[in-house]
């Protein structure tokens, strides 16, 4: 699957951004480096959320934010691959994993970018509600960007498939999307004290 996001143009791309958000790495070392970078970027957002309470909350939120992506990868991706394979969709496991890794990278990029803004809101909001809204908005936005990337990648892979395969693919992807949102919400509510989880 080729990336469906346009790249290039008159402005030179950032090397870091191109490596993180560009085509899937070719070597295992680069894949690991990308995964670590993705987790670190998501953890930055967790640090921002934890800034309201400080102390141990910084660490618990830094761990909690990326853990949703790991849960989706472990619990959701294999199931999606099985359904797509049963319908003879032209998608390999590696392509699916690369699409998911790219989606997590996009989401983590957004989360890291929003971290200063969210830190501002959680530390300057008197009420827990204000901090909660800001935190959830950032998580939602990052998740939506990641999901959008994943769906674009899958739609590109299914472009030349038969109608029946496309229908099954769309259905499976829809269920996967709903499952991902629900699972991520469950993980975050359980692990992030700012959302009412374990403090």
């Amino acid at each position: 699957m080729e990336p469906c996001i346009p790249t290039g143009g008159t402005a030179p791309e950032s090397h870091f951004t191109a490596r993180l958000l560009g085509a899937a790495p070719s070597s295992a070392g680069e894949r690991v480096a990308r995964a670590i970078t993705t987790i670190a970027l998501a953890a930055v957002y967790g640090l921002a959320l934890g800034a309201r309470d400080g102390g141990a909350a910084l660490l618990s939120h830094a761990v909690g934010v990326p853990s949703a992506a790991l849960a989706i990868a472990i619990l959701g991706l294999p199931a999606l691959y099985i359904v797509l394979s049963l319908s003879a969709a032209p998608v390999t496991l590696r392509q699916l994993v690369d699409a998911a890794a790219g989606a997590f990278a996009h989401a983590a990029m957004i989360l890291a970018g929003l971290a200063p803004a969210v830190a501002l809101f959680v530390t300057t909001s008197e009420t827990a509600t204000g901090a909660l809204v800001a935190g959830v908005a950032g998580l939602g936005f990052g998740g939506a960007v990641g999901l959008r990337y994943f769906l674009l990648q899958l739609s590109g892979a299914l472009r030349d498939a038969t109608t029946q395969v496309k229908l099954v693919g769309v259905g499976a992807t829809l269920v996967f999307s709903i499952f991902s949102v629900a699972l991520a919400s469950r993980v975050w509510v359980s692990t992030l004290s700012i959302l009412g989880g374990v403090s």
Partner: protein
Amino acid sequence: MGRIGEVVRLLLRDPEEVARRCREGEGLREVTLTSLLLIAVGAAVFGTVLGSHRGDLQLLYSGIKLPLAILATLVVCGPAFHAIAATLHRPWPMRTVIGLVLASAARSSLVLLAVAPLLWLAIDLGISYHAAVILAALGYAVSGVLALGVLVRGLEATRGRLLTAAACALVFFAVGGQTAWSLRPYLGRPAQAEVPFVRDREGTFADAVVVTAQSAFGFYRTPAQDESRPHESVDPGSVAGDAPLSESEPMGTRRSRR
């Protein structure tokens, strides 16, 4: 001075050219330095006008705080714009982001500079406190909208441009509102004995917008409403950090803090 004048002219008449220079890194140093100068001057003038409502130390404090609020907004929004552009549209190098946000804020500061005399005249003619707050907020909002023009023009006409622009605008206004809110008061009330540099945190900017709009039309929260939400009450008069008004006190009446 010639280069400064050229950048000012471009900011006002040709934001497309400013955006192009930021995107391609052409003359970025002149754009950046001139933008910083315009932010310092324009926002300081507007802030001083706001402070003239109360006078004394409020003049100085507001003249310092408003440029700080704008610069803080840029610092917080910069990483967000970089990330949004990278994931939704086309990656921008950080220097492009810095140039674009500074140029945007400079354009906004020029608008504040233009609005300042009108606001000063209104305050000098005795406009009520709440009306002054709304007028100032409107001026700040309009300057923000015009500032976004530079940022949006920095986006090339490719897929994802509208979504990127919308996302950047949302972040910009949310952060701009919250930073301005965090550094209040700007106007102050003449009857206020003390002039704090900043107030304690009270609610959020979004809460304040709702409450002030209600207050401007004579609708104040009852003590029962505040008691039911003991940690979330926002006093009608506290938008710019002034003494809270009682339920029966008519709009515009002053009361000093205890």
